[in-house]
């Protein structure tokens, strides 16, 4: 056998049995020690972090009277005449107060900045009596002139306020907003003296007081706004901490972008003795999964929403913090009645009848929504919509055959457009399958990114489009006026002159609530006979609420009134009743 050199031997002996020189061993050892030390250091840090838990937000909040509230998205801003969202709603109703506020238990209007109000005989003129104790956070009294100026700002055509239409029931408000009228003094809002605000409406509007609780009708502090720039300029800094002057139960203390907004109880608020919370912290929680985890970890008292997959788990819990209640909104599919084959009302009705809403609600939506057969949610302040059809696959097949597509033959195809969101996808996929199973027709589904989807809907570039509509106030009107011929949110091609007549003239002129509701019923029947939309379900509000929170009852508007909220650290279970505050 050939004698091998040392290197040769090493190579042949295989990599795993390579002999180490002393040097190499020392190198390796020294290094190993260093690496070991680093690893131990890392582990220690981890353990330390785990142990450093400390008091949770909820525990500390209960002790100090601070509510930690998951508020959905980071707000666009805090200017009531600029913002447009629901998260902003909660923030602004904590910072500001409207003429009238809603009682969260009954949704009836209660005194806010106005301590009382009087209606004229024909109910077209409302006189609000401003509470003499109402103050801005800098001590200035709130006067009727503040309202006149603020409504001018809200309606001003240069302002770009997307909610200006809230004030359109006021005489000439719409004309002013559309630049048809230059002189604001012709608009029906006047302050004959600082304590009285006289509002003249185009016609009697039963829900007008509710609108006074919407932020677009709030008053803002004129000197503050004018200090920081032009009144109609959107970009001024008047809403920053330290600049902002507001008139509500809470004042802005801290605003860390995308982290939290902290408010403390206001000293200048006229009703401060009735406010139980000392502090409210709002968190932007746009990720539902993280929000739910935060709730479990005691970081927040209240979640904005809850991931669908978690609902069965919480529903099955005894003593669950999960609260679900009907919400004033409808989830539906828009049908483009100008496109084949949707031009035929029989086709539209067949599609509506072939949907098994109960199964959909039970399986896809985890039993957390209520099937809907019309646009207005049931029991909207006592109004119940008509139900013209039910789940009837056989009936649907017959109708479709009558319309020229027996057993789906000759079906040209249809596409459901929806904006990118998991729950919309789930429903679209389920609907696609249901229509295939019941009617033997092929449907495609397409998701579009939010802005693209909005564009498609506005330009009516769709066959079937998913839509959701949440009411701004509790009245059938704000659902039925969607389908006026010139309604910007119609998007279906539905147009009936008599329908417009009912909604615009006959219903407002009704003398009694029964008469008014009867007109609505007539109009809605007319609407659903044509089936330009396929209602799917009525929205529900879904929140996780820590048992220590009292005073957030469920209501149709999912309306929060922080004045009514208090924290009871002794209440450890949701089935325990809330003892009333000792105030």
């Amino acid at each position, binding site marked *: 056998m*050939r004698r091998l050199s040392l290197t040769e031997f090493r190579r042949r002996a295989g990599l795993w049995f390579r002999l180490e020189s002393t040097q190499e061993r020392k190198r390796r050892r020294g290094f190993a020690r260093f690496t070991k030390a680093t690893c131990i250091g890392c582990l220690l840090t981890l353990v330390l972090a785990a142990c450093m838990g400390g008091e949770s937000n909820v525990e500390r909040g209960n002790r100090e009277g601070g509510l930690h509230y998951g508020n959905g998205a980071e707000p666009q801003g805090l200017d009531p005449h600029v913002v447009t969202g629901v998260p902003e709603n909660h923030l602004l109703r904590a910072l500001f107060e409207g003429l009238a506020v809603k009682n969260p238990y009954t949704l009836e209007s209660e005194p806010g900045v106005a301590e009382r109000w009087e209606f004229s005989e024909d109910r077209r003129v409302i006189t609000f009596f401003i509470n003499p104790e109402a103050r801005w956070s800098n001590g200035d009294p709130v006067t009727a002139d503040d309202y006149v100026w603020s409504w001018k700002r809200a309606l001003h055509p240069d302002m770009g306020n997307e909610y200006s239409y809230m004030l359109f029931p006021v005489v000439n408000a719409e004309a002013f907003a559309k630049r048809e009228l230059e002189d604001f003094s012709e608009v029906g809002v006047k302050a004959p003296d600082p304590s009285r605000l006289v509002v003249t409406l185009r016609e009697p509007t039963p829900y007008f007081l509710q609108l006074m609780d919407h932020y677009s009708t709030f008053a803002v502090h004129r000197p503050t706004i004018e200090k920081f720039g032009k009144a109609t300029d959107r970009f001024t800094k008047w809403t920053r901490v330290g600049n902002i002057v507001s008139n509500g139960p809470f004042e802005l203390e801290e605003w860390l972008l995308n982290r939290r907004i902290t408010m403390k109880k206001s000293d200048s608020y006229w009703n401060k003795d009735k406010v139980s919370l000392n502090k409210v912290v709002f968190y932007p929680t746009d990720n539902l999964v993280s929000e739910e985890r935060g709730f479990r970890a005691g970081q927040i008292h209240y979640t904005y929403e809850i991931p669908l997959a978690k609902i069965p788990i919480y529903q099955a819990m005894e003593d669950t913090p999960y609260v679900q209640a009907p919400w004033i909104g409808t989830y539906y599919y828009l049908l483009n009645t100008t496109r084949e084959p949707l031009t035929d009302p029989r086709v539209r009705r067949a599609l509506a009848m072939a949907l098994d809403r109960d199964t959909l609600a039970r399986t*896809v939506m985890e039993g957390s929504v209520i099937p809907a057969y019309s646009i207005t949610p049931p029991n909207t302040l006592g109004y119940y919509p008509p139900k013209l059809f039910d789940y009837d696959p056989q009936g649907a097949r017959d109708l479709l055959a009558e319309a020229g597509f027996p057993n789906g033959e000759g079906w040209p195809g249809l596409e459901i457009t929806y904006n990118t969101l998991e729950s919309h996808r*789930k429903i679209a996929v389920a609907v696609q399958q249901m229509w295939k199973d019941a009617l033997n027709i092929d449907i495609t589904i397409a998701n579009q990114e939010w802005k693209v989807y909005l564009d498609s809907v506005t330009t009516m570039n769709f066959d079937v489009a998913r839509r959701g509509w949440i009411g701004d106030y509790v009245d059938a009107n704000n659902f039925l006026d969607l389908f006026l011929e010139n309604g910007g949110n119609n998007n279906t091609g539905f147009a009936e002159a008599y329908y417009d007549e009912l909604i615009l003239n006959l219903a407002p002129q009704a003398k009694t609530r029964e008469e008014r509701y009867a007109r609505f019923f007539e109009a809605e029947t007319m609407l659903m006979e044509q089936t330009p939309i396929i209602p799917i379900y009525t929205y529900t509000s879904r929140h996780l609420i820590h048992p220590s929170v009292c005073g957030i009852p469920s209501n149709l508007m999912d309306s929060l009134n922080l004045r009514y909220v208090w924290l009871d650290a002794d209440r450890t279970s949701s089935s325990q009743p809330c003892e009333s505050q000792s105030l």
Partner: protein
Amino acid sequence: MSDSGLTAIQDAEKGTSLWQDAWVRLRKNKLAVFGLIVLATMGVIALLTPWIAPYAYDAQNLDLGATPPSAEHFLGTDIFGRDMLTQIMYGGRVSLAVGLIATSVALTIGVTWGAVAGYVGGRTDAVMMRLVDILYALPFMIFIVLLMVVFGRNIILLFLAIGAVEWLTMARIMRGQVQSLRQQEFVEAAVSLGLPARTIIRRHLIPNALGPIIVYTTLTIPSVMLLEAFLSFLGLGIQPPQTSWGLLISYGAETMEEYPWLLIYPGLALTLTLFSLNYLGDGLRDALDVRGSKD
């Protein structure tokens, strides 16, 4: 000296081609071979999916919902009651397809660009490579996000966008290769024969530069697949009803507490494939690249 030594010398003199050498070296690399086998299996499964998938792609069972792995559904079901194994197979088809196609796009553009720049040299080369430098410095991730947001659901656009990002390094490598090859005598011979540049590039330069190209291609596919998965995770890549591993993982991540199998199995599939590709690429690089030895 013994007989074995003589035979060894004779064997060495017999001479083998670069490819045969490379193949022998590759075979010795156990991990690379493992990668190759895994990839071949994945490829076969992906091709045959429409015939061998246990369930129809869109067969949903709403009442069933998400269930853990069982006898009927080896990898469980998703929230629609669809079989996960089927989903992963179809997702693999898409992910692999995106990987291959986008890489081919990158390959075509990059190789051509680099070859031309390297061969022609001079001003043209400087301009072409300067452009590459400028493009290299652009934060492509940002543009891709924007592009996908703007133009959305188009899978062709996805291929193009991803391919457009990856061609740059390919171009650089090709150029380097061509530059060093250009000095060789066989190229000079071809030039003196009067062959047009196009033919020289096509028939002489590209085949000889193939080594690093192959290696880099094998390493680009995984980063392309990662890119697609990343975009799908953000909601900007593959759109339903099509599915891809990235999309499956993003859905799984949402519900990983309740249904961990929705995350684990697609994740495993993706990681395994990328793993194999990377090790194969490494192995190829070691096998083909005579210069860079480990020890």
